[in-house]
């Protein structure tokens, strides 16, 4: 079967789908220039290169180019063989079909490669049809391409050359995808112009019928009309008196208690051509002030009870309309509204600015126009059969948009609006009485109120409307029993409601129904494409209900009110609701949740509503609300148990049966009643913020390492950090074997420590992993961590570069690390003396001056003849602990060009700290040195190690002059020696790769051969000597003792390493001439100390009692062991190669005679290291 090379030119989802399918089949696919973003992105994800327009020869490399309808007409490569898709709108016996044709085009010939037809049937969702047509198109093409591949690229003969004429109409897939039967809602209502007009008509027609019934008045339409007209005249007069302009943007506040006067005032404001801004005087003053400030009111209409100073800061003046006097002269219509004619012509005049709570807490003013309200009124009147006989109830506060649904449709229908007082609204019994007395027929009541109301019987109530929140099933079954129970859904921005459904006993409570008249719903995915039935998407609303936007919130308006991309007209707007919904099979819409309340728990998207439903379904509590708190933990609040024994635990257990574990709320809290907002919604914000500390489990404090691990786990497991406890098992959190490797790899990339899989598996928790990573206990031999072994491997990239450097052994420039150390200064001296090289001295310091002073002081203290300002001494400020030896890149580059040799002598000498602590200074610095040695040009590296780090023995048990062994060093397995051993490995590998390097292992570096000068505090053997002197006893160890004067050592190192004839890469620099430890120690007696040699065991036992005053106090742990590894017997250290090298350079070992010993010991006394002997010595004369 042949692999075909197929070019793509397209921009659609279909093109992307087919591209992926053909790629999966194994063909070579190429996206051609001119293709759309989606296709290009898909190609990038597959790792396919995109072709630019310049690749004109591309067609020659392709078997075929697939062209999608959206790209027909785009420029195509010449000479290409094309397969073009065309989609037609086909009617067969009046039934609609989608016709799919793939045409095969070569030169001038066109044949049909494949064709098919898709029947729309009674499918109601355009996106589903599009999906079906695309599937058909894909299947047809894939089938043809498979056939071509089977026949090694031969395409089939033409099956037909022409299609029936009915296939000529192009199918508009974009339009089809957005079509939904439920959106066919166009309905033309009789022209009314404005609410004012509608009301005027009703007032004329039903003049003597009752318009309003409040606590104290029954008011006819004529009375209401006259009062409204007179208020509007009064407003007009006040504005003209004050010289204020009254235009179609003028806002006037209303802050009146629920009474006939309130509605007359609203109508009066509208009649004056203004828009009203409702204030609920029971709301907090803060909120009222914020609204007044935002709406920039001049006047707020209120009554004499109202606190007139409330808005003085906002510059709003109270306008007190006198008490109504319902006098007989009101019995005829006095005159018309001042602006009625104006309004008739301008249906887009602003009618109301209603404030809703924004997610930020700042109220935002939604601007609705007359045309918005009118469409709502007309639809509603028909939908709930409002007539002049109806008696709707006006429960909601006017600050809530549902009030619009009560007020205007009623007053346009000649019906009577029943108005409860504030007191009535909060008293169930009075409510009941009111509804029954006035035989209320219609009402909007919020779900929370319905849920709380006792079982009242309201037989006259034919239409009950609810919405704004989810009803629980109990409420639905109770209130739908003997009336029409309407669930409405819609943001204020779309004029109270956009969709509705009639609830019956068995209705699903998240069903929000279908769009109302002249309204449409788009459910779009994140790419703004319509989704098919059952797929979640965000709801966008179009139609006559879509308001003007937000008052004084231009940005927010632009964010939420968008141009309708699917309508041809540029002025059509859609509103982005932020609600996640889906189409149901029956054409209704199902509410899923708010976009901003969706939470991701353990990588799963959790819909809080789903949990709410599950809780309600358990039938343990009647009411419930599920929220997430600040830490993204799920809280469930429940209230009103069905039975007395219901509690948190029973709910939790029941939920465990039905919900996956990640959806079980962390907290379940029983309340007497769920708190509600003023609008009758459950107050979820207050629940999310509620202090439930009694139920909280305090988390343990996390260390920094644990915190970093937490981040890694969250990433790997794709869950939130706060879902992870430090003692949770990785595997309980959703981890599995594949994720373990990924996690360990991530950990390795950010931690130095030792975290291996096997150890992790023993206890797979954050806490245990953190302790593995930070474990600093010194482990011996086999227990040395894997990380240490890993450090042993030299990065494969380090190897010699370019040509050989002829100056390796006759260097013109040398780098010396640790130049200001004891040995370092003597090495510097020897380099200056024995070569002509410039010596770059790496010294740590915060400044050049400081480093220079340090070096100067060391040279002085060690009595070196050279001064720091010597021209051949070049000071380099650096730091071995830092990357690149603490050099900046330019210094590093410069040195790498100049140097011929590096003496890596510096180290952090410390026998107590662990390996990890010393790693940077002692191991990474070696890596950097080797890097430097192979960067730009080759350099020699002479690595100063130590005999205690030597690790390779011969059969006789002698340490040999060879590279390091794989087993750790023979002497002390402390951190320091480990760093030296690892460094030796790195250097040894460098040698094996052809780098000119040397491992130099000094033994016991002792004082200057002529002066005895040394730095005793840093030498542990001298601490043994001092401690023993203090105790008066010394261990009678049987060992050959090393004394290797520093001046000899330095000279030997420099001469031997520079020797051209040297044939060893490893040099052992102890002094093998004979001297027993005991002889050395007893030298103390010659200078006046009383000291006895004792059995080492006895000596050790005495160490247990020493205090700080003894020199051994800080290092005592090294000597409590029987196997003292410090004072190795140098009799079994190979040195033949070193010795012969020494001979070649004309050097010999100094004798370890009494004179040398005494010079050493005397210096120790003179410099104050050793306490003064009790008896003055008689032989002090040879102090130099």
């Amino acid at each position: 079967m042949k692999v075909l090379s197929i070019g793509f030119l397209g921009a659609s989802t279909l093109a992307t789908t087919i591209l992926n399918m053909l790629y999966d089949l194994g063909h070579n696919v190429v996206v051609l220039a001119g293709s759309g973003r989606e296709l290009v992105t898909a190609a990038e994800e597959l790792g396919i290169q995109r072709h630019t327009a310049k690749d004109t020869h591309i067609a020659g490399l392709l078997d075929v180019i697939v062209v999608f309808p959206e790209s027909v007409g785009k420029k195509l490569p010449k000479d290409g063989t094309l397969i073009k898709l065309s989609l037609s709108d086909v009617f067969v016996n009046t039934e609609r079909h989608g016709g799919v044709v793939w045409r095969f085009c070569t030169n001038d010939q066109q044949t049909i490669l494949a064709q098919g037809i898709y029947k729309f049937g009674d499918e109601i969702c355009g996106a589903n049809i599009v999906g079906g047509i695309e599937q058909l198109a894909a299947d047809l093409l894939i089938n043809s391409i498979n056939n071509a591949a089977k026949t090694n690229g031969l395409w089939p003969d033409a099956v037909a050359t022409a299609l029936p004429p009915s296939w000529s109409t192009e199918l508009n897939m974009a339009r089809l995808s957005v079509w939904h039967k439920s959106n066919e809602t166009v309905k033309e209502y009789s022209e009314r112009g404005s609410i004012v007009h509608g009301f005027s008509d009703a007032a004329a027609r039903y003049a003597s019928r009752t318009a309003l019934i409040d606590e104290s008045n029954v008011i006819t339409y004529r009375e209401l009309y006259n009062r409204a007209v007179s208020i509007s005249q009064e407003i007009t007069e006040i504005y003209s008196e004050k010289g204020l302009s009254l235009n179609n943007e003028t806002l006037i506040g209303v802050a009146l208690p629920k009474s006939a006067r309130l509605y007359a005032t609203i109508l009066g404001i509208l009649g004056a051509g203004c828009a009203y801004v409702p204030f609920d005087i029971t709301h907090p003053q803060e909120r009222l002030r914020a609204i007044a400030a935002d709406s920039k009111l001049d006047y707020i209409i209120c009554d004499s009870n109202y606190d007139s100073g409330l808005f003085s800061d906002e510059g709003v003046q109270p306008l007190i309309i006198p008490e109504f006097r319902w006098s007989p002269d009101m019995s005829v219509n006095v005159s018309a509204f001042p602006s009625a004619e104006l309004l008739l012509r301008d249906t887009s005049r602003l009618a109301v600015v209603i404030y809703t709570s924004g997610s930020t807490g700042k109220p935002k003013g939604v601007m609705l126009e007359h045309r918005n309200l009118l469409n709502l009124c007309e639809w509603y009147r028909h939908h709930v059969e409002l007539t002049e006989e109806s008696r709707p109830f006006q429960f909601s506060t006017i600050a809530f948009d549902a009030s619009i649904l009560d007020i205007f449709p009623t007053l346009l229908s000649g019906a009577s609006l029943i108005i409860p007082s504030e007191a009535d609204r909060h008293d169930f019994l009075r409510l009941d009485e009111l509804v029954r007395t006035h035989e209320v027929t219609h009402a909007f009541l919020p779900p929370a109120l319905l849920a709380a109301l006792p079982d009242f019987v309201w037989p006259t109530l034919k239409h009950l409307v609810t919405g704004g929140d989810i009803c629980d099933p109990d409420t639905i079954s109770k209130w739908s029993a003997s009336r029409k129970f309407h669930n409405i859904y819609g943001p204020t921005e779309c004029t109270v409601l956009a969709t509705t459904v009639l609830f019956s006993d068995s209705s699903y409570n998240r069903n929000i129904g279908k769009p109302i008249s002249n309204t449409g719903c788009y459910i779009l995915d994140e790419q703004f494409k319509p989704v098919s039935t059952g797929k979640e998407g965000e709801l966008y609303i179009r139609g006559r209900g879509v308001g003007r936007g937000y008052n004084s919130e231009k940005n927010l308006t632009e964010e939420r009110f968008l141009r309708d991309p699917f309508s041809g007209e540029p002025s059509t707007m859609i509103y982005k609701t932020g609600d996640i919904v889906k189409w149901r099979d029956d054409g209704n819409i199902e509410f899923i949740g708010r976009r901003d309340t969706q939470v991701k728990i353990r990588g799963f998207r959790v819909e809080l509503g789903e949990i709410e439903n599950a809780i309600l379904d358990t039938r343990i509590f009647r009411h419930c609300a599920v929220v997430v708190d600040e830490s993204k933990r799920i809280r469930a609040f429940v209230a009103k148990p069905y039975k007395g024994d219901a509690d948190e635990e029973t709910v939790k257990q029941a939920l465990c049966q039905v919900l996956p574990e990640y959806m079980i709320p962390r907290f379940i809290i029983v309340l007497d009643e769920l708190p509600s907002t003023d609008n009758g919604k459950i107050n979820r914000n207050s629940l999310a913020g509620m202090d439930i500390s009694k139920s909280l489990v305090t988390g343990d404090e996390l260390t920094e390492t644990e915190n970093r691990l937490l981040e890694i786990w969250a990433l790997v497991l794709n869950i939130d950090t706060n879902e992870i406890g430090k003692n949770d098992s990785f595997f309980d959190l959703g981890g599995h074997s594949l994720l373990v490797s990924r996690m360990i790899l991530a950990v390795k990339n950010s931690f130095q420590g030792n975290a291996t899989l096997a150890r992790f598996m023993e206890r797979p928790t954050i806490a245990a992993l953190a302790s593995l990573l930070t474990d600093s206990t010194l482990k011996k031999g086999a227990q040395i961590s894997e990380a240490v072994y890993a450090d042993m491997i030299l990065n494969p990239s380090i190897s010699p570069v370019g040509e050989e450097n002829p100056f390796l052994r006759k260097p013109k420039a040398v780098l010396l690390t640790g130049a200001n150390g004891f040995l370092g200064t003597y090495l510097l001296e020897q380099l200056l003396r024995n070569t002509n090289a410039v010596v770059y001295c790496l010294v740590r310091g915060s400044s050049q001056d400081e480093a220079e002073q340090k070096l100067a002081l060391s040279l002085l203290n060690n009595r070196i003849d050279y001064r720091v300002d010597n021209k051949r001494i070049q000071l380099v400020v650096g730091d071995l602990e830092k990357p690149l030896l603490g050099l900046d890149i330019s210094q590093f580059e410069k040195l790498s060009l100049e140097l011929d040799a590096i003496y890596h002598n510096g180290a952090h000498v410390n026998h107590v700290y662990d390996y990890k602590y010393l790693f940077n200074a002692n191991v990474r610095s070696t890596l950097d040195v080797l890097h430097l040695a192979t960067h730009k040009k080759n350099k020699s590296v002479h690595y100063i190690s130590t005999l205690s780090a030597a690790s390779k023995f011969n059969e006789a048990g002698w340490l040999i002059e060879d590279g390091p062994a794989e087993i750790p060093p023979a002497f002390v397995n402390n951190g320091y020696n480990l760093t030296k051993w690892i460094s030796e490995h790195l250097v040894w590998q460098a040698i094996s790769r052809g780098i000119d390097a040397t491992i130099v292992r000094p033994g016991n570096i002792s004082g200057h051969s002529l002066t005895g000068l040394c730095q005793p505090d840093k030498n542990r053997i001298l601490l043994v000597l001092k401690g023993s002197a203090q105790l008066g006893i010394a261990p009678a160890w049987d060992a050959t003792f090393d004394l290797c004067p520093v001046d000899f050592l330095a000279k030997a190192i420099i001469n031997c390493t520079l020797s051209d004839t040297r044939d060893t890469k490893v040099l052992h620099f102890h002094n093998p001439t004979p001297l027993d430890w005991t002889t050395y120690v007893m030298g103390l007696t010659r200078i006046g100390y009383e000291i006895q040699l004792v059995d080492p065991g006895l000596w050790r036992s005495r160490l247990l009692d020493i205090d700080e005053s003894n020199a051994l106090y800080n290092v005592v742990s090294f000597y409590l062991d029987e196997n003292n590894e410090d004072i190795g017997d140098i009799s079994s250290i190979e040195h033949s190669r070193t010795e012969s090298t020494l001979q070649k350079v004309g050097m010999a070992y100094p004798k370890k005679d009494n004179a040398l010993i005494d010079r050493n010991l005397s210096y120790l006394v003179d410099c104050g290291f050793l306490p003064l002997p009790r008896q003055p010595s008689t032989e002090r004369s040879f102090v130099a």
Partner: protein
Amino acid sequence: MSEQPYVSHSDSWESTATIRNRPRRVIEDDNLRYYPMNRQPLCTHPVIVQLDQKVQDLILVQSLYKYINDIIIFETEIVNKTAREIAKGNFPFLFPFDCRYDAMSVVIDEDYHAYVAMNYMHQVQERTGIAPIELPSEIELSRAIPRALCTLAPQYQAGMELIAVAISENTVTAEVAAFSKDPSLKRSVKGLMVDHLADEGRHSIFWINLVKHYWANIDEEARIVIGGAIPGFIEAYLTNEIQMLFDHRLVESLDISEVLMEKIREDIPTSYPITKNHPMIANIRNFLKRSGLSQHEATRTGLSRYF
């Protein structure tokens, strides 16, 4: 449980079987990997990480060889043993003819998968020059199935075998998922997996239907006995022993010092906990639901830790 009539997949096989529709995967000339790092924890070992890239590549290639070898054993010795018996009417429980000739298409697919795998292995050897180390002669199922069967009376063994094969055929998809999303893998390796998966989707439904049919036609006692043996089978199936032995052998084949080898070997986990989060468990759970076995109270109870 009401039984749906069996619908043969022969039509879709004609148009979608990879043996009929897909070109051979050929190794690309690029630096991408032959095997996902995630599937070979050895590559995360601190010592290995420090070694030359070639060592990691070698480990991955050898791991691919083992994976291919596993496929060959699985397809030819496990699935096709049972599928061929069903097809030829030699299985102790006689299935309708439609089932049987569909079973024969499974035999073809599986032998083809084994062939494709061998071909690819040959290509890798040619290109990398890396010869496989000694590969295991068994896979976990080679032990888990006989072990499950020997605990049952003869009349229940065939049923158990059927369910065991059906379970394992339904877990292949989880295996393959690990490959598909890895951008560091060679396209041909991913393609190999995609091709395999394309057929396994069909197989998955086939085996589920067979189990449904079988389950509907046996008595309650048989259901209780066979259902009770499933947990033991799953446990044996999901062990790590053979992989562990292979990893040891793989480490020993590396050109590194004994001490480093020892360090790496110490760190090969002997087992992983099998939790309900394990991707294969998710597939098994799905199988148990779709085949209807989980509706059987006693069977479900025995498997409760996976639900």
